């Protein structure tokens, strides 16, 4: 446990110092994107990794978060710092609404249902011209007030300011998810994942827990969407596409479902790889599709999961040996 915390701390220090080394704008951009999409992966992980429900509308919630920030700042003149929490609350509320309906049915239907809702969100964004700009998208979302000043105070450019915004958001997300996982609430989610009937008869209010997991999960997606809106500055309905959801699903699977490091590791690896293989963008599912299949068939626990399993196996073996020795001594 201790060692793992040190790992996170070291990673944070390195990440925090990175902009001071004046990396290229390209590298910084990749870093920001990885952090934003990793947040969405954390959000999905709450439902898929911890609660065992497959959510397929997360790009939709990500886009709702982004558009809320975009619309409130551009059309209503709100400050980003107000619009951002509003976007998070809206996503939580919509997540609750969706959950109220979708969780009344059992497992399989939830996935189908959210898939449909994801498409509907994209369509609404695409067709509601007066609000979202429709096909044209939403242009010129401004950077948050004070971000540039902050960057300049450090002697850095605005892009570094965005980097720190994303980093702080990611840290908040990871801490929130870690706290949720370590709580009695989180253990109840794990129980639901392991078997809904068993969780129910053990006295867990399955419906209420799923609803809260859903709200938490969509709120995180909206939180990431808010950062994305100000970072990219331009919003189009493609952000809400099912393909985006599946891309993030792949990140999560590669890294490791239900693990704390998995979403970040998977996103960093797969996003980085996609960037490295330029020209892949449009046809990435020629590779991502089969990769999803291979992962669930042969390594459903992902990279971090594989590592944790190996560690657990060693621990059990060590304990077994210790017990055997005790028995011998007795």
């Amino acid at each position, binding site marked *: 446990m201790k060692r793992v915390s040190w790992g996170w701390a070291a990673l944070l220090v390195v990440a925090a110092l990175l902009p001071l080394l004046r990396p290229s704008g390209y590298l910084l951009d990749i870093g920001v994107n990885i952090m934003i999409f990793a947040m969405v992966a954390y959000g999905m992980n709450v439902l898929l990794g911890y609660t065992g429900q497959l959510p397929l509308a997360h790009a939709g919630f990500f886009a709702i978060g982004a558009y809320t920030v975009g619309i409130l700042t551009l059309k209503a003149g709100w400050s980003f710092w107000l619009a951002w929490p509003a976007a998070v609350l809206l996503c939580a509320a919509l997540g609750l609404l969706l959950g109220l309906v979708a969780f009344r049915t059992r497992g399989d239907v939830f996935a*189908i249902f959210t*898939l449909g809702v994801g*498409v*509907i969100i994209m369509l609404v964004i695409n067709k509601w011209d007066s609000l979202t700009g429709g096909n044209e998208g939403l242009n010129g979302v401004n950077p948050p007030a004070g971000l540039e000043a902050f960057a300049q105070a450090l002697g850095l450019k605005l892009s570094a300011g965005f980097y720190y915004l994303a980093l702080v958001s990611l840290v908040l997300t990871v801490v929130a998810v870690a706290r949720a996982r370590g709580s009695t609430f989180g253990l109840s989610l794990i129980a639901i994942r392991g078997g809904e009937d068993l969780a129910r008869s053990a006295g867990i209010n399955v419906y209420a827990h799923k609803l809260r997991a859903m709200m938490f999960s969509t709120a995180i997606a909206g939180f990431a969407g808010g950062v994305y809106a100000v970072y990219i500055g331009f919003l189009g309905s493609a952000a809400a596409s099912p393909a985006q959801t599946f891309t993030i699903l792949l990140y999560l699977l590669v890294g490791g479902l239900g693990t704390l490091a998995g979403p970040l590791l998977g996103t960093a690896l797969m996003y980085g790889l996609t960037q490295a293989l330029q020209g892949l963008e449009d*046809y990435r599912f020629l590779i991502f599709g089969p990769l*999803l299949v291979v992962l669930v*068939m042969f390594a459903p626990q992902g990279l971090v999961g594989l590592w944790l399993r190996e560690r657990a196996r060693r621990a059990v073996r060590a304990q077994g040996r210790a017990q055997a020795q005790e028995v011998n001594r007795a």
Partner: protein
Amino acid sequence: MTLFLQQLFNAAALGGVYALVALGLTLVYGVMRVPNFAHGGLYMLGAYFTFAGLTRLGWPYLLSLLVAALLVAAIAALMERFIFYPLRDAPHVQPMIAAIGVLFFMEAAIAHPRVFGPEFQTMPSPINTIVNVGGVTVTGQRLLVIAASVLVVFGLNYFLKRTLTGATIEAMSQNRQGARLVGIDTNRVGMLTFAISGALAAVAAALIAPINLVSPSMGEVMNLKVFAIIILGGMGSVPGAIVGAFLLAFAETFGGAYISTDFADVIGFAVLVLVLALKPQGLFRRSA
């Protein structure tokens, strides 16, 4: 009145196509308990295979349709054997995710410029006659769609009720454990069910494609519709799928005229959300 009759014909043709696609999906769900997200992909492949037969190889329509159905059936069976069967005891999200992977792979493969490309394509209509039924003009293709889908649905029903293999599929979709106890080879049944579902989807696609356009994403749209249908009809229920298919087709055809056409493709899903909010079990709950 004429317009109404016209719409009625359109709705019937659409309903027939939905029924074919939804039937395969509901059978697979009944037997394997897996919502096959790749089903729309099979439908899309069926359309493109027929398209290729017609335009690239210059085959006649019927031959193209049959070859497409066979090919898609084979692909579906292989999918069962190499993906869904090995994952049958895994947590439910795993086969679902695998199916999504397959769907997106199929789409990307078809959309690749070296294959068919991402753009919409028009399939030449094999039947160009126009029939006049009591003042209503109906294209021959629509009549063919209606006739063929009715024929296939009845054929399928005969197969499920009157043949041993069909009865086995029915038995398994009712009760998997029970079927195993009775000594049914559940392995082969799974593969066969997948093959049938693939063939049905391909036939549906080949029938409707000359009326609509073909595109790599046509499967995604169809997926939403048929999933809405089978949830409404009760997952795994055969009559439910047929009733649901025609309900959706009528809602779309008649509703599409009054409600914004932008959302015609998701009317079904919007209805589904409403229905599930009120009746979580679907309209035609299967008796346990």
